[in-house]
């Protein structure tokens, strides 16, 4: 597994720092800021994967990397691994449009899967609704909240390509637990079936979606949204 440290054309290095799907506490932010001032970092760039790229002198990169664990931050893995998870602001505290706790799920997925080996880089995006601020159709594994603890799962998308491809819906209205089970299944199939360096979407195009579909028992846990909190509220007081 590679790490997110890249030599730049200006002679400096860029260190890719991962937070909890881009969420930082004020303490983390100020702690990182103090460290970066101490190390005379040149610039910090927020990335499309919700990580931070710190550009600084090469001889100071190691000191930054060593300081990350104390700030509850992680050096980004790189290469053919599961990358930092992109999750939107979708949770009760941060987005009124969110239909479920997407951010919380994204953070937990990142904790569990970040850096795991895969045949090709594997990107996960978790959105709180179908507005899809984190482009779940353009991820290898996209998750969209469609209710409280109810998610749709899309696989095989990729956006960063001259020939981008939208993913395909493989599970509808499944629970959080089923999202994990489907992800494990897809990763297992991807590792078993993909050619070296082949993106999941390309493997699906070559082999067909069926080769990656989760078994029924994993996705037949569809949640009936009729039985939701609003229905109880609507019928209350009558």
């Amino acid at each position: 597994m590679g790490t997110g440290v890249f030599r730049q054309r200006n002679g400096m290095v860029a260190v890719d720092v991962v937070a909890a799907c881009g969420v930082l506490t004020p303490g983390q932010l100020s702690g990182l800021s103090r460290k970066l001032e101490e190390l005379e970092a040149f610039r910090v760039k927020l990335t499309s994967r919700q990580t931070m790229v710190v550009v600084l002198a090469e001889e100071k990169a190691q000191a930054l990397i060593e300081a990350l664990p104390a700030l509850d931050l992680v050096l980004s893995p790189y290469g053919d691994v599961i990358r930092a998870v992109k999750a939107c602001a979708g949770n009760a505290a941060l987005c009124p449009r969110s239909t479920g706790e997407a951010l919380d799920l994204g953070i937990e997925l990142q904790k569990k899967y970040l850096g795991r080996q895969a045949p090709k880089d594997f990107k996960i995006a978790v959105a709180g609704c179908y507005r899809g601020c984190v482009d779940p159709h353009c991820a290898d594994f996209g998750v969209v909240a469609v209710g409280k603890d109810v998610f749709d799962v899309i696989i095989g998308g990729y956006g960063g390509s001259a020939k981008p491809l939208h993913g395909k819906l493989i599970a509808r209205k499944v629970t959080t637990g089923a999202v994990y089970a489907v992800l494990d299944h897809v990763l297992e199939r991807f590792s078993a079936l993909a050619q070296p360096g082949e993106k999941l979407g390309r493997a699906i195009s070559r082999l067909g979606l069926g080769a990656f579909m989760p078994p029924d028992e994993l996705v037949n846990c569809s949640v009936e949204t009729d039985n939701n909190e609003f229905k109880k509220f609507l019928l209350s007081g009558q």
Partner: protein
Amino acid sequence: MEQLRKTDEINPAVLQALLEKICRSCDLLDTTDCKESSCLVGFSKKVLNFAAQKGMLDIPGAAGLIPAGDFKPYYPETVAPVLAETCRQCKECRDNHSPDCVVALVRTAMEHTVLPEAITYPGSVFMYLATIKSHDATLATMLAEALKKRA
């Protein structure tokens, strides 16, 4: 600096006040037969209350609970101002329109009060007005008047 739209900018109080006006002309008000879950206006009020309590603008599955079987008589004169207010508060999400959006739920429920069926929302206010006109020209005129009043 350009004024940015905020996701919490819908104003449920204005909609609530207009819905209360409809209730005041209802024979069932304050009787044991007043049941919000089976009344299009009551449903709309519940939607707004729930959304305000939860701080959310989408209620998954709520569109399926609209009491389309409420055939009480409603009057376009009182319904048009509510529809106009939903037009004002609509964020015109276009492709991302959700039928479970709070504004869409109130609008759909109100359509059921005066139209034979709800309209498939075309995603923008302008196109909506044109669609209403094709269904009911009188209602479209009232809606346009109501929109002008507070524009």
